[in-house]
């Protein structure tokens, strides 16, 4: 495949708060990710090339616009979005991504300032890989790597994984759920 060994992962960050966008951008860049930050779900979908068309149009769009295809050199490897946003919430965005044939395999992570177990569970059940409580920490961003690694399918990339420094243990999805018992209520 044409993927360069040192291609950076590209994360699309979605948050209506300018401060939080700055913060998540810095957190992600510190972890050597390429970042695109937008301020709404609608803009996120536009960036991906997903408009409110039916599947037929969507596939036509995604094959024409190489930005939104599976081409890992320009594509998006992970989406991290705030939950509470005016218009389209992070949950709405999650659903739209998971309903899209082109993008349903992109890992989605939700962030929220509110610790509401039913909200968290609903997001995880509907396909979110992780749910981070704000303010997001570097330790949270470190949890993204395993989800990004999953996106690399070819065997040759196994050797790349071994070369990476500071490789964290890959944790199981169950651990994500267990985590929320420990959280204190704000």
């Amino acid at each position, binding site marked *: 495949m044409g993927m360069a060994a040192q291609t950076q992962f590209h994360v699309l960050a979605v948050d209506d708060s300018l401060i939080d966008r700055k913060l998540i951008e810095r*957190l992600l860049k*510190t972890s050597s990710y390429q970042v695109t930050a937008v301020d709404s779900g609608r803009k996120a979908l536009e960036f991906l090339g997903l408009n409110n068309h039916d599947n037929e149009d969507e596939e036509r769009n995604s094959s024409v616009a190489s930005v939104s295809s599976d081409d890992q050199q320009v594509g998006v490897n992970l989406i991290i979005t705030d939950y*509470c946003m005016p218009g389209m919430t992070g949950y709405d965005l999650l659903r739209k991504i998971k309903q899209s044939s082109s993008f349903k395999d992109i890992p989605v992570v939700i962030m929220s300032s509110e610790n509401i177990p039913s909200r968290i569970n609903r997001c995880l059940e509907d396909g979110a890989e992780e749910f981070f409580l704000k303010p997001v*920490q570097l330790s949270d961003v470190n949890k993204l790597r395993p989800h990004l690694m999953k996106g690399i399918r070819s065997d040759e990339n196994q050797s790349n994984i071994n070369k990476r420094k500071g490789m964290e243990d890959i944790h199981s999805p169950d651990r994500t759920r267990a985590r929320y018992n420990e959280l204190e209520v704000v």
Partner: protein
Amino acid sequence: MEVVQIQRNLVDYTKSLFMEGFLDGQFLQLQQLQDESNPDFVAEVVSLFFDDSQKLLNELTIALDQPIVDFKKVDAHVHQLKGSSSSIGAQKVKNACIAFRNFCEVQNIEGCLTCLQQVKLEYYLAKNKFETLFRLEQQIVASGGSIPMIEMGF
């Protein structure tokens, strides 16, 4: 004044802000994200916070002054202020916002007005503290020194 003395003042001042609850661990996170390639990161984010907060406080004053108060709108503004203060580690402002949201929820106008005053007070205090902090940092840098990293016990 010797650079060493200003550095010591900065460390003591910062520690006092943590001890008094003005700042929490999130501020340390911000500092850790600052480096030679992003030397103004903390100042930039805090400056955004000032601008954002000023606007929100103005909106809140107007919203609570209406003959019929739109509590959803008020709550939305407070939620935003709570979020941004939490993101920079301005703990007292954040806590004042939490109390404020409780009164929004039960649509208690008197409670909201009192909370608004409290949030404004905490905000101006915090602004003051941050400005002092940055002034000390600037003095250090102007004297050719480097800004000391704070080691906290928690």
